[in-house]
C-alpha cells in the first residue's frame, strides 16, 4: 500500500492513541464500560491496522509468531493460576477474599489479575487469527479491489 499516502499518515497518527485507549479500557474496566475482553480486541486492532496499512513483515518484526502463541497460553494461565493461588491460600477456586488484603482490596486484586489474563488471551487470539488469515498467499492484487 505504498501509494496510499493518506492511509499511511492517518495510521501513523492513530496507532498510538488506539493502543493507549486499549490500555485505558483494560485498567479502567471496573469504573467505566469495558474490561479485558474489549481491551484485548482494541489493543489487537491497533497492531492489525499497522500490519494492514504497512506490511505484515514489519508487524511480525515487532510481534513475532512465537510471541503471540506464548501470549495465547499465558493469558489463560494467569487466570487459572489466580484460581489455584486462592485454593492454596485456603479458599474456594477463584474466591479472591483469601488473597491477603482487606476484603475489598482482595476482590480488586483478583479482578485486576483475571482481567489481565482475559485481555492477554483475547489480544493474542485476535492477532493469531489475523496472522493465520493474512499469512496465506492472497489471490487478489491491491488494485483489484
Amino acid at each position, binding site marked *: 500500500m505504498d501509494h496510499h499516502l493518506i492511509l499511511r499518515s492517518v495510521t501513523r497518527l492513530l496507532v498510538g492513541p488506539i493502543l493507549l485507549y486499549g490500555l485505558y479500557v483494560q485498567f479502567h474496566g471496573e469504573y467505566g464500560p469495558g474490561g479485558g475482553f474489549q481491551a484485548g480486541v482494541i489493543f489487537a486492532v491497533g497492531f492489525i491496522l499497522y500490519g494492514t496499512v504497512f506490511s505484515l513483515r514489519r508487524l511480525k518484526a515487532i510481534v513475532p509468531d512465537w510471541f503471540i502463541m506464548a501470549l495465547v497460553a499465558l493469558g489463560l494461565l494467569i487466570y487459572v493460576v489466580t484460581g489455584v493461588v486462592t485454593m492454596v491460600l485456603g479458599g474456594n477456586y477463584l474466591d479472591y477474599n483469601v488473597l491477603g488484603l482487606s476484603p475489598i482490596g482482595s476482590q480488586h486484586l483478583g479482578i485486576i489479575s483475571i482481567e489481565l489474563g482475559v485481555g492477554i488471551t483475547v489480544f*493474542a487470539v485476535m492477532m493469531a487469527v489475523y*496472522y493465520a488469515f493474512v499469512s496465506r498467499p492472497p489471490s487478489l492484487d491491491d488494485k483489484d479491489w
Partner: protein
Amino acid sequence: MELALTLLLYVALVATAIAIIFMRRLFAVVILSGVFSLLCALLYIVMDAADVAFTEAAVGAGISTILMLGTIALTARSESLKFNPSKVPLGVVLLVGGVLIYGTWDMPNFGDPTAPVLTHVGPDYLARTPVEVDIPNVVTAVLATYRAFDTLGEVAVVFTAGLGVWLLLANGTGGATRRRGDQQKDGKN
C-alpha cells in the same frame, strides 16, 4: 427524542440489511456488514447497554470486518451465484422468521420491571456489589467475581478457538509454506 432516534436507527438497520441482500460485490457487502454492526452498537447505547455496545463495535465492526476482508483476499471478489427464484428457501426463511417472532410474544417488554431477569439474581447483584466488591461497574463485578468460573470457561473457549484457527489455517508448522506467502504479500504491499 429517544423514540425518534431508535426508529431512525432501526430504519437504517433494515435498509443496510436490504442493501446487503442485493449487493453482488463482496467488498461492499463486508463494509455494509461493518455498518450494520455499528448501527447495532448505537442501538445498544440507546438501550443503556454500554458494555455490549463496546463489544459489538470492537468485534462486529472492527475485527470481523478485517477478517472478512482477509477472506475475500483469499477467495473471490463477487458473488458467483446467479439469482435462483426457488420457493423452498423463501418458505424456510418465512417459517423460521415466523417461529422466532411468535417466540418473542412470550418475552417481557423492554424495561419491564417484572421481567424474570430483573426479579431473581439481578437485584441481589446490584445490592451486594457496592458492599462486597465496591466497584461502580456492576457488569465487571458479575463477570469477574460472582461469575468468575463462567468467565474462565469463556476465556478457555477463546483460547481453543484461536488455537484451532491457527492449526487449521497457518499449516501448524510455521514452516516454508507460510514464509513463501509472506514474501508474496510483502512484495505486493
